[in-house]
């Protein structure tokens, strides 16, 4: 890992230093700069959402409601959910890493619609401002699920503003997905056929499809909720002749696939990281690629498993249960293929690899407990308990955020042109893994024993496990703060990154770090399969 070729004396122009000034950032159409804009705001929302998680875990450290009253607690967990789901998890990997990397990976100069890309960031900001307004004005207490008729007729919170915030934010997601799908279809470099694409691009293609097909449905659902609450034009409240269960169907038609918007991009990151640090072509490339598509397709057919106890017919429940089991198949294919890639590979335990391995373990637990809650009998027992909370945090935090951190660490040298501290980053990866398990594993036990979600008080016999969980949360919090510090530190003091510090394949590693504004000086022509490590021999590795 030496530095750039010695013949370059002064710093070459790249996308970071080619233009200066705030205006050059706020009006940029460069996908790489827009990715940085997203990175900054997404990080801010992550820590704000994390702040509410801290309040939740502090309150639950004791059985009594001694820190927050029940109303405030309702608002706190609602804000935690809204911020983390809609303003962090959904945009995190696609809008930051996908935005930055997709054009680089396919040898394009930019996404197909650069201005729409910038517009999507401003829409995201506008949606975020609505949400911040709700926060400052007094909050909303419906839970992030906004179930009617409580949300439309009884809640005292700022439901309309919160709903509009998510409605607006949805268009940011739609435009990002549209941009990705068109770009992957129409902007690939000469010779870059579909089956030469990196798996990261495949997973983002599947993600884009879900964004396009799912997000408009949540948008129209929240639009109807706002009409019902604001103008008494009823759709869901029985007082207006409506059916509240219809809201749940429409809500989950998007919000279940939204889980795959969060996890599929992580799976793409993990595929890249594992292949690179085993220096092996991923085992079963086409299976991993098509399993992303299969997850996107089947993901749209399982929403009814959120309605097992909502008066849905038992026969519909059985069908949704079987379909939910089917989604486990493509997910399992990925897990087996990643482990098969590692088998007899020369595994290098770098920081991104540690996060990727953490992802495999935690996602497997999250996925398998998903089968528990997808089976009718067990779900009746654990519905609305901490078992469900633990399950989806294993998928969303253990899966999606581990993947996000793997990706941030993997591509940080490419994005910033700087190397971070290997020692600190490895330590924090281990802290995150330990803290995460200590936080959420006890919640499986709590849920199975019957502790319901969304209450700020609980019987004293649950205290030991709750204290373990809160202690784990503090460790997890530290694990998230350390990367924030050393990554910022690396911007100023980190050594310069070579173009390909990890010995990775892929077009993004063939341009300089950080890349020039046009990405490539000459449009690359692709002549080999993806992950062809033999092509790297003798080139700039080591």
């Amino acid at each position, binding site marked *: 890992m030496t530095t750039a070729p010695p013949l370059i004396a002064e710093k070459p122009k790249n996308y970071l230093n080619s233009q200066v000034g705030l205006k050059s950032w706020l009006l940029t159409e460069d996908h790489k700069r827009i990715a940085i804009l997203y990175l900054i705001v997404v990080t801010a929302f992550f820590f704000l959402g994390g702040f509410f998680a801290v309040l939740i875990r502090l309150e639950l450290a004791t059985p009594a409601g001694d820190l927050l009253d029940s109303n405030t607690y309702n608002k706190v967990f609602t804000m935690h959910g809204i911020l983390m789901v809609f303003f962090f998890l959904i945009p995190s990997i696609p809008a930051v890493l996908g935005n930055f990397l997709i054009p680089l990976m396919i040898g394009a100069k930019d996404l197909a619609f*650069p201005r729409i890309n910038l517009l999507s960031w401003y829409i995201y900001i506008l949606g975020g401002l609505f949400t911040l307004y709700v926060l400052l004005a007094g909050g909303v207490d419906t839970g992030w699920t906004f179930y009617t008729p409580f949300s439309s007729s009884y809640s005292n919170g700022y439901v309309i503003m919160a709903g509009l915030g998510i409605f607006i934010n949805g268009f940011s997601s739609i435009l990002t997905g549209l941009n990705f799908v068109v770009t992957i279809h129409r902007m690939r470099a000469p010779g870059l056929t579909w089956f030469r694409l990196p798996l990261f691009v495949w997973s983002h293609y599947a993600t884009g499809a879900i964004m396009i097909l799912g997000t408009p449905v949540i948008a129209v659902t929240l639009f109807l909720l706002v009409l019902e609450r604001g103008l008494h034009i009823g759709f869901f409240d029985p007082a207006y002749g409506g059916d509240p269960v219809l809201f749940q169907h429409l809500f989950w038609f998007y919000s279940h696939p939204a889980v795959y918007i969060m996890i599929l991009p992580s799976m793409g990151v993990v595929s890249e990281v594992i292949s690179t640090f085993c220096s092996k072509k991923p085992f079963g490339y086409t299976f991993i690629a098509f399993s992303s598509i299969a997850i996107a397709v089947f993901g749209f057919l399982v929403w009814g498993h959120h309605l097992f106890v909502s008066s849905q017919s038992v026969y519909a429940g059985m069908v949704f249960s079987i379909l939910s089991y089917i989604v486990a198949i493509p997910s399992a294919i990925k897990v087996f293929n990643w482990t098969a890639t590692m088998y007899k590979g020369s595994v290098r335990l770098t920081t991104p690899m540690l996060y990727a391995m953490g992802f495999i373990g935690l996602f497997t637990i999250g996925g398998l407990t998903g089968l528990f809650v997808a089976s009718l009998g067990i779900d009746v027992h654990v519905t609305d308990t901490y078992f469900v909370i633990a399950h989806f945090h294993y998928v969303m935090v253990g899966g999606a955020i581990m993947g996000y951190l793997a990706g941030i660490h993997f591509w940080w040298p490419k994005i910033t042109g700087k190397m971070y501290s290997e020692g600190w980053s490895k330590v924090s990866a281990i802290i995150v893994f330990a803290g995460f398990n200590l936080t959420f594993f006890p919640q499986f036990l709590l849920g199975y024993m019957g502790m319901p979600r969304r209450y700020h008080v609980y019987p004293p016999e649950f205290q030991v496990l709750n204290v373990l969980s809160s202690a784990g949360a503090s460790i997890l919090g530290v694990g998230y703060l350390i990367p924030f510090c050393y990554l910022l530190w690396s911007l100023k003091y980190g050594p310069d990154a070579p173009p390909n510090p990890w010995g990775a394949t892929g077009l993004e590693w063939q341009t300089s770090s950080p890349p020039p504004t046009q990405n490539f000086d000459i449009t690359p022509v692709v002549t080999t399969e993806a992950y062809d490590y033999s092509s790297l021999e003798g080139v700039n590795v080591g």
Partner: protein
Amino acid sequence: MDSHAAVVTHEAEATVPLRHHFENLEQQKDASTVGMWVFLVTEIMFFGGLFLAYFVYRQAYPAAFASASNKTDLWLGAANTTVLICSSLTMALGVHFAAIGKRKLLVLFLLLTLFLGSVFLGVKTYEYHDKWVHHEVPGEHFECEGCKDAGHASLFFSLYFGMTGLHAMHMIIGAGILLILIWQAYRGKFTPEWHTPVEMFGLYWHFVDIVWIFLFPLLYLIDRSGRGLS
């Protein structure tokens, strides 16, 4: 949609405005076309939620829907349907004249499209006003004289206002974009080689028309034979 049009209409000083990140004009037009169709797919899903709600409730309360539907003004609805179909024709002719480089005819047919769209919105406003006067807007003062099952007739009118309102919103946005296109066409921005914004807007306009083609029978024509449904 508007942003989409804005992207492709920028930088018209050259006769062939190729944006820097495309290899050639063909790739650029191709990307715009795919992007527009994908956008229309998102629109189908957007309206789809409302259509689903309509089908669920109509299936559940057929008699209430039939009698409430007869409260709509058949002739105004039919007239508006004709107006919109004509506007699709003028739009298609506009695209045609853009493609063969007849600037004045392009401007004329875009103006006609805008005029017909405005007529539609005017009639719609009159219908809304009429519903308001007769207390047929859902809410506290809702009344439905002669309706079977007035409680669920209110659902019909919720869907009526939700669906036609969302449709009208698309018409208003479309009219705004049309104004911009008319100005650009007048200034001679479009050539036979490059008139992608006109074509893309045509797709949008036809989509909005097609939505109405579904809305008209679903909302106005449930039980015009007067058999009553139970």
